[in-house]
């Protein structure tokens, strides 16, 4: 490795890192992309979706036709799970737009491998099986990385850290003090193999169409939720659990997953499906409050490593933020290399570009919603209230029917005071309206 000189080292061949490497390589920057897995994607578990964003199409014309995604999402179901009932909202639109402007499900090992190959084809050097152990810092400026093995150090004027949710490089650089349990969620997932046609039938889809099911509640009071995502010939089924809440509960994620998978909401979808893999991963969940400064002299931070991932309770975004931040890191990095100015002041243009982009704007728009989702009641009391209202609404027991408002007051009475309910309604209103 010592024989070749690189202008940029990108750490992590996930979506943020590979897009950054692709952007840099296309600009003629001598780029090294380091991945600790034996291949890109080997360390990525993911059952989720990628929402359309402009960055990949700009770099790879025809990206949405070429990339190995699984299904186009046409149907999204949000279910509030109570002890003895569940209430769902189903959104379906078969018009995903042409040209495509929708959302796709992905199988990350396949997608990550393909994306890293694009960076390689553009001229980046991709080295797998290489764990970055730390930074090389001189005079307060990052100027390379330390890797395992005999060669030890790779120097380069630019380092892009796409090293994932724990973000050890950003921490070592002093951009943050280490992520904390209350900022993160753990995702656990089972991957189930199932025939494409069976998936189509069970979810009401035709060939190539996909569905996402998301569940609020049903996690035994732990803040979090469940998901079922349709891939081409498999289903990703799992839970995302706030770490501080999980820790306080004394419950094990695999026990909660087992219960979720066996529940009446999920079990019928999995009949005859074969569980082929189990995995776990952390997700940043604290929104803007946990996003540190993402640039310093010689280094830019992109994707999960920068805390750029969130859910607002209605949708989950992460990969589009990773691709967009990785793209911007590549652009700003290439511009800085062009004028040979890797100073903190120069690279701060990256934070500026992110602030102008949808990445920071969306995080800001839903900042209150992201904070709202840290309220325990949303995952315990309110699902029960919704269930009680719906049960009463449909009940027929010979007694005269009551208005919905009276039913709701009755359902709330034993659980949450009027005052707390009003305060929560105001919070919910301010979060979404």
């Amino acid at each position: 490795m010592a024989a070749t000189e690189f202008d940029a080292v990108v750490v992590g061949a996930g979506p943020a890192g590979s897009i950054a490497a692709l952007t840099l390589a296309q600009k003629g920057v001598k780029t090294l992309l380091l991945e600790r897995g034996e291949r890109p994607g080997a360390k990525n578990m993911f059952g989720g979706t990628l929402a359309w964003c402009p960055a990949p199409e700009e770099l790879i014309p025809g990206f949405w036709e070429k990339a190995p995604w699984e299904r186009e999402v046409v149907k999204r179901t949000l279910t509030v799970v109570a002890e003895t009932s569940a209430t769902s909202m189903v959104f379906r639109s078969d018009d995903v737009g042409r040209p495509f402007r929708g959302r796709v499900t992905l199988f990350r090992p396949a997608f990550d491998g393909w994306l890293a190959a694009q960076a390689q084809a553009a001229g980046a050097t991709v080295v797998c099986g290489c764990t970055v152990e730390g930074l090389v810092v001189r005079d307060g400026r990052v100027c390379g990385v330390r890797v395992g093995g005999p060669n030890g150090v790779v120097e380069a004027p630019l380092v892009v850290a796409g090293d994932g949710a724990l973000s050890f490089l950003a921490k070592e650089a002093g951009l943050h003090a280490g992520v904390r349990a209350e900022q993160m969620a753990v995702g656990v997932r089972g991957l189930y193999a199932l025939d494409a046609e069976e998936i189509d039938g069970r979810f009401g889809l035709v060939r190539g169409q996909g569905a996402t099911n998301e569940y609020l509640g049903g996690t035994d009071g732990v803040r979090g939720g469940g998901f079922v995502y349709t891939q081409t010939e498999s289903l990703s089924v799992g839970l995302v659990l706030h770490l501080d809440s999980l820790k306080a509960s004394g419950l094990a994620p695999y026990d909660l997953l087992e219960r979720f998978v066996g529940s009446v909401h999920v079990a019928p979808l999995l009949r005859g499906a074969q569980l082929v893999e189990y995995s776990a991963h952390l997700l940043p969940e604290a929104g803007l409050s946990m996003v540190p400064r993402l640039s310093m002299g010689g280094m830019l931070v992109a994707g999960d490593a920068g805390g750029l991932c969130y859910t607002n309770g209605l949708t989950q975004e992460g990969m589009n933020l990773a691709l967009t931040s990785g793209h911007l890191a590549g652009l700003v990095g290439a511009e800085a290399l062009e004028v040979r100015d890797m100073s903190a002041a120069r690279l701060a243009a990256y934070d500026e570009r992110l602030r102008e982009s949808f990445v920071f704007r969306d995080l800001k728009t839903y900042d209150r919603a992201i904070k709202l989702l840290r309220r325990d009641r949303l995952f315990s009391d309110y699902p029960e209230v919704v269930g009680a209202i719906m049960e009463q609404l449909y009940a027929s027991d010979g007694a005269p029917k009551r208005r919905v408002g009276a039913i709701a007051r009755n359902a709330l009475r034993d659980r949450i005071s009027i005052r707390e309910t009003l305060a929560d309604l105001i919070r919910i209103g301010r979060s979404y309206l």
Partner: protein
Amino acid sequence: MNLDDIFDLVSYRIHPEAHIVVDYSTCPSCPHRACTFACPARCYEWNDARDRVDFAYESCLECGTCLLVCDPGALTWNYPAGGYGVRFRAT
């Protein structure tokens, strides 16, 4: 889903040395022992006789949960050396 089977479905290339090192001296005074239930891979198990956890790094999924729930700060946490550790399915 048979709980005991799920952990057998994961593929690893195990390094001879542990990538996470536990300072067991904090275990006896730990107020929550959160690693013993929060770790998605069941790597930590409480050992009454030794009054500390037993830790098996071999089945680690490299998620980082233990690092964040262990507030006594008993863990020296690194990713495994390149190419080692968990390897998720390619297909």
